[in-house]
Each structure stands twice: as C-alpha cells, then as structure tokens.
C-alpha cells in the first residue's frame, strides 16, 4: 500500500504527459495580415527600400601568400558590380565544366584557367566575375553552396596562376540559370559549370 503513494503521482504524471504530447512548443496565434486587399503585404510604399550597398569588410585579405588548402581565400574584394560593365563574350570560350556533385577543377580545364589568367594579366585594370552553376539533380540550397564552391575553386586556381584574388568576385546561381534547359545527362554536363565575365570599370 505504501508503494501506491509513490506510484500514483507517477501515473498521474504519465497521464499528463500523454495528454500534452505533441504540443510542447505552442504556436502563437496568427495575426491577420494587414492590408489583405493590397497587392502586396505591407504595401504602403512598395515592398521596402533597398539600402545602398554596404561597405565591404576588407580586413584579412591575403595579398601575397595563397593558402595551399582549398576553401581558405576570403571572398573579400572591393568590386562593386554597379561600377563595372560586364563583358560576357570575352571569356565565354573558356567556361569550365565540373563532374557530377564535384567542385574540383579537373586537370583538363587548366588550359582554360591559363587563358583567363592571361586575359587578366594582359589588362591590369580588368576585374573578373566568376559565376558558379549546377545541374538540377541537387536541391536548391545545396546547389547554391555547390555553385559557390565551384566559383571559389576557380578563383583559387587563378590565384595559383598568379592572379590577385582580390580582382575576382564570385557569385553562385545554383541551378537557377541552366545553360541547357534539358533534363538528361547531356544537358546536366553543360550545366555543371563556371562562367567567366570580364569586368571593365565604367
């Protein structure tokens, strides 16, 4: 009988636990959105103002030593795309392609890297934008990271060829800008790529 005194509260506790299962983290009441009839949420003055470009942190840029392990050159650059004209044709022949799910620059692509490097060496005022792209077989955010990693791998390859990485800006488009809209291996192979865009100051 003595035991019941211990067990009964436990049983009550269990019953209480069962009764509340699934709602530990309460959901706050959803307040109706203001301006329900407006075309846009909070549509009082457009969808919000875009502030001017932020000042970019320039600290810690390696200018002389290039890390030997991949993934360690900060993206720091003073390139503001608004200040440049984009020449997409100049280096279009040197687009680099990647293996499935890989951001490793293949040996056979070194000639393309060298050509891009020469273009930058020959025009000291030019800067470079590298666009990283993926095929559609990864999920969206996964591909956004993979595309950035590809662009950064190309930037690192150019740095090894003596190009100051501060002259190079990267952007990942994930799978949002396929070169070929198809859904087969031929299209995918074309879409796993890094494109080089030459930047000339306006």
């Amino acid at each position, binding site marked *: 009988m003595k*035991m019941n005194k211990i*067990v009964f509260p*436990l*049983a*009550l506790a269990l*019953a209480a636990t*069962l*009764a*509340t299962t*699934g*709602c*530990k*983290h*309460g*959901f*706050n009441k*959803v*307040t109706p*959105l203001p301006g*329900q009839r*407006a*075309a*846009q*949420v*909070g549509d*009082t*003055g*457009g*969808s*919000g*103002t*875009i502030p001017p470009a932020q000042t*970019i942190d320039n600290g810690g840029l390696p200018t002389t030593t290039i890390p030997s392990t*991949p*993934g*360690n*050159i*900060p*993206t720091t*650059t003073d390139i503001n795309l608004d200040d440049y004209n984009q020449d997409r044709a100049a280096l279009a022949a040197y687009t680099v392609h990647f293996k499935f799910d890989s*951001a490793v620059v293949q040996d056979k692509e070194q000639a393309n890297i060298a050509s891009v490097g020469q273009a930058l060496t020959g025009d000291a005022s030019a800067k470079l934008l590298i666009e990283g792209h993926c095929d*559609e077989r*990864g*999920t*969206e*955010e*996964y591909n*956004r*990271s*993979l595309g*950035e*990693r590809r662009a*950064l791998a190309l930037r690192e390859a150019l740095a090894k060829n003596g190009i100051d990485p501060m002259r190079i800006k*990267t*952007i*990942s488009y*994930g799978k949002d*800008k*396929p070169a070929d809209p198809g*859904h087969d291996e031929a299209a995918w192979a074309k879409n796993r790529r890094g494109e080089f865009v030459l930047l000339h100051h306006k």
Partner: protein
Amino acid sequence: MKKNIINLLTILLTAAATNFCRAQNEIQIENTINVLGQTKPIPVALDGFTGEAAEVLKFDLYVQGFSFVSPEAAQYLIHGSDAGGVTGTVTDKFAHKMILSRSYNGASTRRQAHAFADDIVKTTTALKPIGQSKIAFKSQPSSVGAGEIYVADFDGFGAQSVTSDATIVAKPAWVPGRLALYYTSYARGNPDIFYHSLSSGQRRVIAGYSGLNTSAAVSPDGSKVAMILSKSGSPNVWVCNADGSNLKRLTTGLEDSSPCWSPDGNWICFATKKAERRRLAKIPAGGGAVQYLNTTGAANPTEPDWSPDGKWIAFTRMAGDFDICVMPADGSLPPTVLVAGQNPSWSPNSRTLVYNRGGNGHQTLSVLDVFTKQSKDCRRATGSNSQPAWAR
C-alpha cells in the same frame, strides 16, 4: 523486491496509459503508438457542409490524420451547416455524447471552416491545430530563374507577394511568433540576406558580404540567425544577432548548406560533406565540435528541419529523385523514407510537413501528415512554388 516494485510500476503505468486512452476511446489506443507513415487515421463522418466549407474541413482534417468514412464506421460524427455562417457539432459515437458544438460568424466562410477544423482537432486529439497557420514560400513563373517571396494560408490560399524585385529569391524563414521574414534575394546583384517586416513593409540587408549569403534560419527565441556565408572562402555556417551584428563563424568545412535550429536553441543542424560523402551534422549553436548524424539508408541527405517538439529531424535525400525522410533527432532509429519531395518544413504541432514536389518541372507545395502519410497539394500561387517555411 526491487524487481517486484519495477513490475508493479510497469503495470500501474501501463494501466494509467490505457485508462487515459480508453477515456479517449478504443481506437485512440492504436493512435497513441505513432509509427511514421503507418499510423491509422481517425475515422470520421462528415455531413451537412457544402462547397468551400466542406473542402476546407476535408483538407484540414485529412492532413492532420483523419479519414472520411460512413457514419457506421466512424469514431466521430461531424455534422453542421455553412448556410449563414459555419455551425457544427461533433459526436463521439463510443461515448454516446456530443463533445463539441460551435458556430462562427467572423471573417469568411473559409476562415470559419478553418476555425471549426481547429476546434475539432483540439477536441479529439492532443494536437495543437494548424488550420489558421501561415506559410511563406518562393514562387517562380518558370521552374528556374527569377521569382518572388510569397506568404499564404498553410493550404496555399490567400497568397500574397512579399517582394517585387523580379530577381532570384530563396529560402524564406519566419521570425517565430512574428510577422517578419528573412530571405535571400539577388536584388543587389549578389545573393544577400534580407530582413523584411510584413507589418511595415520595410526591409534591410542583414548579410551582404562578398560571396554567398543565403539560407537564413531564425533561432527559436528570435534573437539569432544562422546562415550560409562564403566570406572566409567556402560556404559555411555562421551565426549573427537578429540585426546582423555579432557575426561568428561556426563551421570550417568546404561545403555546408541549410542550417536549422534545435527547438531548445542549443544546436544547429546542417548539411555538409565529409570524406566525399554528403552528411547531416550538428554543432553547438555557440560553437564547438561537429557531430555527424547517422542517416543510414538515406543517401545524400540535405535540407534538415528539426521539429518544434524536438523529437524529429525531417530532411531530403537525393537519390536520383528527391524524397522526404524523417528520423528521430536522437538517432535512435534509422530514417523513414516517406514520399517523393524536397524542402520539408515542420508545422507548429510537429506532426505535419509542408514540402514541394514535382520532378524536374514546376514544383507544387504539398502538406503531409508524417504519421498517416496522408498528403494533399496546396493551392498553387503561380508557376512553380518551392522552399516553403511554416510559421511557428
């Protein structure tokens, strides 16, 4: 003696659990054993409602684990009308009594029907209902390229655009309990993370560093944001304050993506790569050692989302196509592959997921009850809809 005490304890605890369930009724006993994808739905008979009210009730109840059967086979009889406001009753056939009787007059028939569905769920289960909850998502005219961020009811109705930049957008994330989002936009020519108040319409960049800024995830208390930045030379997990200040790098791998928070705010789970294999991992939110999760049987895991009750991690496996998987957050069981789809996001009650599906073409948002595996497509906003985030 000790063994006897344990035995007695077991018997009494079992009895308590059984009695509790019996109070609910016989069929509920089975439902207390929730097996992912295999739990039996609660049979109900729905009668008297027409048009939109009937559609809403069916949608809401179906994706919260109810099935529609004849009155003879039903556990609950739901009866009512939508003529001049939604009115309804719920009768428990086993207890032989009416357990709910309500009428609604506010807003629209649609909203009233959601409210009645919520009351049915509250009365018959231990679940917090989701009928009046919101989602945010990305909508594109085509399956690739420019799009806008939208918010809508959880079933896709009442969709409204949040942005109008005609550029690539990604990964909306709600501030818990607030009408505010973080999302990625290429509006400034670079993938930047914006904070956008839906109340004021004002927005600002909280991460606009050179390189990649994406995949914002807000901590459960709303004070911190985890995200992917490549500013150190590779896409890694970083954490900052809600306003972008106090930035701190958490991971140092070559390629990380899709951070999410544990509901206690102590951990950040993310997708990464180790020894050329795609893995899910978690790291203390304040920094520390990375722990890899066991996702055996689910190749190339990405896009984890931790359930608000802390019990589950949903994610997407990439094995040719994409599949939604769920596993216990403590790793005690291997993942269960549920349905084809990607981008899972938990409902506030940790029972339902919103995700997108549709092969290589246009994506459709869909809602899935992970226990019964019942799912229904949401109403399409325009074009291709993806990356849903459930407000919670």
